[in-house]
């Protein structure tokens, strides 16, 4: 734990002692906010909360955590299980709401003005049993990054289907490999982790193979279209994608892409700003589009990501914490995030905002991608989601690694999931 956090706790203890002695005419709370931190997240966060601090007189300390969502989840679960009062607000992943719902405060009443301005699907993803568990602060949806210069050079169009992508990637790779042996057609996230659930859900859904577990709780993953989707992806490993893609997470894929060694990449919006940075070899050379589909007539699918803010029910400063949550989810902060970090807003009107259109033109363009977003089955599988996801990405990983056919692995997965479901998800 950081020294800043510890110092904060000490300060809070000291403050409480002082207040106990002299009485508390004006309650100034010190609020602790925990979040995964990448890049300049800590500095940016300070500017986001400054206006709220000035207005309310409270202070906010951010407790930074590792970037990996899986690592964060385990830690938060421990804190919440122990009923820790040290943390007032948690920045939560879009998929956590059902698993942590009982530990957070209902924000429906506090956010009643905000809710109508948001995309309904996002609010829905954070609502569990009628309780609004967390407020969205930004959303995330991946897209297909492509090298404009290379598509022109080899005379291929932006691919619409996965087959077109495969052919285009192969053609470009064959040409480029002559001068650059490290060049690859397509990079994505194939490591056995939550990210592979996202990637594979996109393939399966865009082939018309369903969403693993449907909204009503039915296990739908064992079908021919899903198997075909996975076999297609398996065909990429070692041909248009390096064999090592099976150990790639987002940053490894971006590493290959940003050094100019890939024609296509599947990644989240954050890679756009970084790819356009001064130190990037692909600056100004790439575009983004929606992810391909299985065949003409199927619809493109991008997995819904995104982050939210939730208030711990163990917090001793709930009123201030709820007020901060509403501020962080509000239009002012969302706009700052969009301009600073290319984070996609969850408030509909911000996609028509003139400043954002001028300074971060990619965000309005991304609206189409985001509107196609598919939620992971965290809502129907409730507390079992992490395990469902792990079983899914393991089955996919086995298939991609060549251990068993897609059909066999999906049949096995179906049996496992049925077992896990028992007489109903709970």
């Amino acid at each position, binding site marked *: 734990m950081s020294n800043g956090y510890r110092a904060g706790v000490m300060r809070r203890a000291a403050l409480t002692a002082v207040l106990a002695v002299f009485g508390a005419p004006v309650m100034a709370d010190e609020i602790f906010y925990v979040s995964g931190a990448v890049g300049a997240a800590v500095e940016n966060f300070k500017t986001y909360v400054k206006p709220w601090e000035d207005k309310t007189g409270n202070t906010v300390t951010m407790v930074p955590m590792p970037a990996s969502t899986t690592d964060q989840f385990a830690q938060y679960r421990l804190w919440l299980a122990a009923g820790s009062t040290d943390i007032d607000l948690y920045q939560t992943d879009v998929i956590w709401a059902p698993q942590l719902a009982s530990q957070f405060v209902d924000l429906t009443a506090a956010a009643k003005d905000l809710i109508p301005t948001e995309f309904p699907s996002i609010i829905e993803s954070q609502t569990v049993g009628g309780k609004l568990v967390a407020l969205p602060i930004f959303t995330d949806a991946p897209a297909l990054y492509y090298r404009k210069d290379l598509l022109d050079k080899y005379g291929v169009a932006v691919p619409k289907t996965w087959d077109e992508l495969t052919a285009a990637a192969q053609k470009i790779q064959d040409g480029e490999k002559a001068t650059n042996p490290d060049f690859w057609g397509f990079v994505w996230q194939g490591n056995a982790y939550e990210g592979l659930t996202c990637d594979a859900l996109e393939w399966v859904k865009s082939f018309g193979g369903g969403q693993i577990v449907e909204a009503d709780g039915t296990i739908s993953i064992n079908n021919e279209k899903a198997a075909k989707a996975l076999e297609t992806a398996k065909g990429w490993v070692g041909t248009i994608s390096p064999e090592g893609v099976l150990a790639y997470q987002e940053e490894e894929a971006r590493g290959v892409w940003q050094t100019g060694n890939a024609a296509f990449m599947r990644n989240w919006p954050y890679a756009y700003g970084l790819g356009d940075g001064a130190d990037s070899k692909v600056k100004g050379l790439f575009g983004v589009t929606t992810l391909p589909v299985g065949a003409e007539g199927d619809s493109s699918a991008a997995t819904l990501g995104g982050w939210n803010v939730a208030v711990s029910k163990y917090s001793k400063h709930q009123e201030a914490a709820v007020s901060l949550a509403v501020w962080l989810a509000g239009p002012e902060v969302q706009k700052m995030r969009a301009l600073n970090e290319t984070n996609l807003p969850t408030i509909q009107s911000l996609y028509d905002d003139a400043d954002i259109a001028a300074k971060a033109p990619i965000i309005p363009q991304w609206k189409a991608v985001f509107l196609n977003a598919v939620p992971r089955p965290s809502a129907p599988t409730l507390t*079992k989601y992490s395990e469902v996801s792990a079983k899914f990405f393991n089955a996919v990983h086995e298939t991609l690694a060549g251990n068993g056919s897609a059909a066999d692995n999906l049949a096995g997965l179906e049996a496992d999931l049925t077992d896990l479901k028992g007489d109903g998800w709970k």
Partner: protein
Amino acid sequence: MTSPTTRVAQDHGPSLQQQRQRAAFWFLAPMVVALFCVAAWPLLRTIWFSFTDTSMDNLYGGKWVWFDNYLRIQHLPSGAIRWKGTLADPAWWNAVWNTVRFAFVSVTLETIFGLGVALVLNAEFRGRGIVRAAILIPWAIPTIVSAKMWAWMLNDQYGIINVILLNLHLIDHKIAWTANTDTAMAAVLIVDIWKTTPFMALLCLAGLQMVPRDIYEAARLDGINPVKVFFKLTLPLIRPAVAVAVIFRMLDALRIFDLVYVLTPDSKATKTMSVISRQNLFEYNNFAYGAAQSTLLFAILAIFVSLYIWLGKVDLTGEGGK
């Protein structure tokens, strides 16, 4: 550390021996209490959890379910029965196999390499002090840091290992070390051996330095060849030290977590007992199930070490053989 000072025994008081024992008890008491709090209590609590249906959302409301987390019979609606629980879970046995395989190979290789390094370091040469200090560096780096460092070095596209091997023409294409299920375990083993050989070397070296020099002198005068000297003289003499080192390493290797977790998260080819139990405890909503796996891990560790001590007739008291 100094021994407790005791007063001269008086005629009617306890004997010096008794006084010493009593003093020793009070000196040890804080240690025993601390050990109970940080070792025994969590262990007992975990074992207790493993017999309940506790979940992370409700840590204090678990009901006693006997051995259900270990093994139970599930009656399916069709009338068929099925074994459930950790002991019937193929994922658990896969983890056990991975762990045992890892422990066996890593400890064996580390012992051999460690002994080799120790023999070299035991020889007199210039700069020996510096070399001894330098060789400890891998052991001194926190595992999480060295695992991350190796993860980049083993990276298939921009990792230096592949570049070196390619330039030496030992391989003809870049190998995806951590991604390929065939090489994932090898990658974990390489890093572990790199990291832990210095530790083994140090313990072996300590053993070597206990061996009296005049024995070698005598062997040399008798004209015995060095290989024979090693197997007939050195090895038997340092065996107790090596045996203790092997126990330490085995305990360590059987509970390996950090390296695997960083290098190959959630890969079936390398997932160990610690990794799978942590996953059930904190990531999945199976707290009690994970506690049962932790308990089994503890039991397996205890069995392995007892077997080793018994079969190898290892003397841990430091008093025997004299």
